């Protein structure tokens, strides 16, 4: 008592909390159970009360060095040890090290005869002795209601219970008391009347043959706490509660981009791909290639060395790897390298909340950069639309907070793959790709549209989504007077266009050759003319030079004759003289 008072002094107004060490529970309770006070854990049979109580003690000793006493009215110490060994708790070791004390209180109505006044001082002494012998700070009592079957005088019992809780408070121990759920009350015998500080309710509901465990804090005096029903998981790692309601919308937004793994799809998304940490939804009817799109994304991420976690609700790991090999993607190598991990489970394996819890845990363990959920629509089979939506919003909030890119696929029913998703959760998603069957010419082809992609100028075009041996390819579809053509129709149309084009080019070639020929002809004619001309020029030039020679000869003769006649030495101008000579001669 003195110790508790000392501890409580520094914290004015508020009281201290005793951390449970149980995953998630401390978050919901804002730090743990009220220290030095009793907490009631109630719920139906098999909902995990004993486990919660025991884990509280075990974690107390191992993580906070607070020894604990477990007072059991139901199971013997050996049974408890065996039961908890399967959860990885070595109770024997803790007992041997005096960190834990298991005390089995046996009550057998037939052995007890009540004669007059009594009280339960013996039990108090026993508890007090157990607590003092190992210096326990934590006590679990499972379940005190057994007293009601052992003693018939309820008046005494109720008075003693009230005294018990006072006694525990007086001891300064943080106590956890379990109680079986009553028909209309939290506990069969109304223990909640006595434990006023903190009441935790566990339930195990079966809806559509699927069981989900939930935890709710009904009351926590003097402390704020989460008021929702939180799903929890019991498995080989003990108890985990998911403190995951919508956390808020204040997560950071990365402007980094990640490739979709398909070049042309990147091109449609401003040439860069999705935003990191965004959520991507791919919807489409059966066989439109949703998983292939996911596989491409995963493959590209693994190639960059990023870790991917693939939740598959339809196919087994090996099946996915085999199927993706057919489009030229070897996902097996990434699994071997440890960058890709598959978590396959049937949706009906357990409830939705359980899936969420399991996914959370897997994400915590694996620390991926990318999470694929294929397909989310399968979860619809285990819960109502509202629940799925709430679960997804929590999951996506969580992923966004961790900057994990989420890639979800969803199956749309029937041929009518409209702008509506089953879960109505497109508003949660940042990018939405629609894969649609384009029917025509007696075949179905896949068309890919980007319905939305927040924060980028995405393409508004439809592309044909082809799965080839070398992966998925996007092709332009033929958009013409005949409508949108894909597949064989597109190929036929392309062939027609090719033929047309070929014809046109042949025509052009023909004309071109014509032109060449004409040009050649013309040039030949030009050459012939030139030759004729050259010949004439030649002849004329020869005639001219002959004429000149002749004239000079005449002039020479005239001069010679003149000299011979001893004529005047008067030089006669050559030309005139020649002409005159000529003229004279004539």
């Amino acid at each position: 008592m003195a110790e508790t008072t000392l501890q409580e002094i520094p914290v004015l107004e508020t009281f201290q909390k005793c951390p449970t060490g149980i995953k998630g529970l401390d978050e919901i309770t804002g730090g743990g159970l009220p220290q030095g006070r009793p907490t009631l854990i109630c719920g139906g049979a098999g909902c995990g009360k004993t486990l919660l109580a025991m884990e509280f003690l075990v974690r107390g000793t191992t993580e906070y060095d607070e020894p604990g006493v477990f007072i059991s009215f139901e199971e013997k110490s050996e049974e408890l040890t065996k039961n908890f060994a399967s959860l990885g708790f070595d109770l024997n070791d803790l007992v041997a090290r005096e960190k834990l004390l298991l005390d089995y209180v046996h009550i057998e109505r037939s052995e007890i005869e009540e004669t007059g006044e009594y009280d339960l001082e013996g039990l108090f002494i026993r508890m007090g002795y157990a607590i003092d012998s190992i210096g326990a700070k934590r006590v679990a009592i499972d379940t005190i209601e057994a007293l009601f079957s052992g003693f018939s005088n309820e008046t005494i019992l109720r008075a003693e219970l009230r005294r018990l809780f006072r006694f525990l408070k007086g001891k300064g121990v943080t106590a956890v008391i379990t109680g079986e759920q009553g028909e209309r009350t939290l506990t069969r015998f109304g223990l909640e009347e006595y434990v006023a500080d903190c009441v935790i309710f566990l339930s195990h509901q079966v809806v559509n043959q699927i069981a989900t465990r939930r935890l709710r804090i009904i009351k926590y005096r003097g402390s704020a706490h989460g008021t929702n029903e939180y799903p929890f998981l019991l498995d080989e790692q003990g108890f985990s509660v998911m403190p995951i309601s919508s956390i808020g919308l204040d997560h950071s937004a990365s402007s980094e981009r990640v490739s979709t793994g398909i070049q042309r799809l990147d091109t449609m998304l401003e040439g860069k791909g999705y935003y990191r940490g965004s959520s991507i939804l791919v919807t489409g009817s059966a066989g439109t290639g949703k998983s292939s799109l996911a596989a491409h994304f995963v493959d590209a991420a693994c190639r960059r060395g990023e870790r991917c976690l693939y939740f598959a609700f339809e196919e087994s790991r090996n099946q996915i790897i085999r199927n993706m090999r057919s489009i030229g993607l070897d996902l097996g190598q990434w699994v071997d390298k440890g960058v890709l991990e598959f978590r396959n489970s049937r949706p009906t394996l357990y409830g939705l909340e359980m899936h969420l819890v399991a996914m959370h845990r897997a994400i915590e363990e694996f620390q991926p950069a990318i999470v694929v959920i294929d397909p989310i629509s399968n979860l619809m089979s285990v819960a109502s639309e509202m629940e799925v939506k709430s679960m997804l919003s929590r999951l996506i909030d969580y992923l966004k907070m961790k900057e994990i890119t989420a890639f979800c696929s969803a199956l749309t029913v029937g041929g009518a793959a409209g702008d509506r998703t089953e879960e109505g959760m497109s508003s949660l998603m940042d990018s939405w790709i629609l894969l649609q069957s384009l029917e025509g010419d007696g075949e179905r082809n896949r068309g890919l549209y980007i319905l939305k992609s927040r924060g980028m100028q995405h393409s508004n075009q439809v592309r044909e989504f082809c799965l080839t041996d070398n992966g998925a390819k996007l092709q332009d579809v033929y958009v013409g007077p005949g409508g949108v053509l894909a597949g064989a129709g597109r190929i036929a149309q392309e062939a027609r266009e090719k033929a047309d084009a070929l014809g046109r080019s042949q025509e052009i070639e023909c004309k071109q050759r014509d032109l060449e020929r004409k040009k050649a002809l013309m040039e030949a004619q030009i050459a012939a003319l030139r030759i004729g001309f050259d010949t004439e020029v030649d002849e004329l030039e020869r005639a001219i030079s002959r004429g000149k020679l002749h004239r000079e000869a005449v002039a020479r003769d005239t001069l010679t004759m003149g000299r011979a006649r001893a004529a005047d030495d008067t030089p006669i101008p050559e030309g005139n003289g020649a002409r005159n000579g000529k003229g004279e001669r004539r």
Partner: protein
Amino acid sequence: MTGELEMEDEGDVAVTVPERWQLRLYVAGMTPKSLTAFANLRRICDEHLEGKYSIEVIDLMVSPQLAKGDQILAIPTLVRRLPEPVKKIIGDLSDTDRVLVGLDIRPLG
């Protein structure tokens, strides 16, 4: 006296009843209830089991570790260790008839 007579009336059971009655009374401090219980026990034993009984009084305040052995919850508790089987009677033993029934000294009714 009457006890012996009635035990004989039980036929077979009476024959097997051993001569020695080993009783243990658990108390927690000398509270009025404890004292009443002890006084009542002495009175009943003297009346019905004269000379054939021994009473051991255990004060859990002094030796709390003993509470576990006999699975003591209520105070006061009277444990009949012999003859077997072990019987437990809780309360201040003020209801003599029930004490006798509880100890198998006298059958019910």
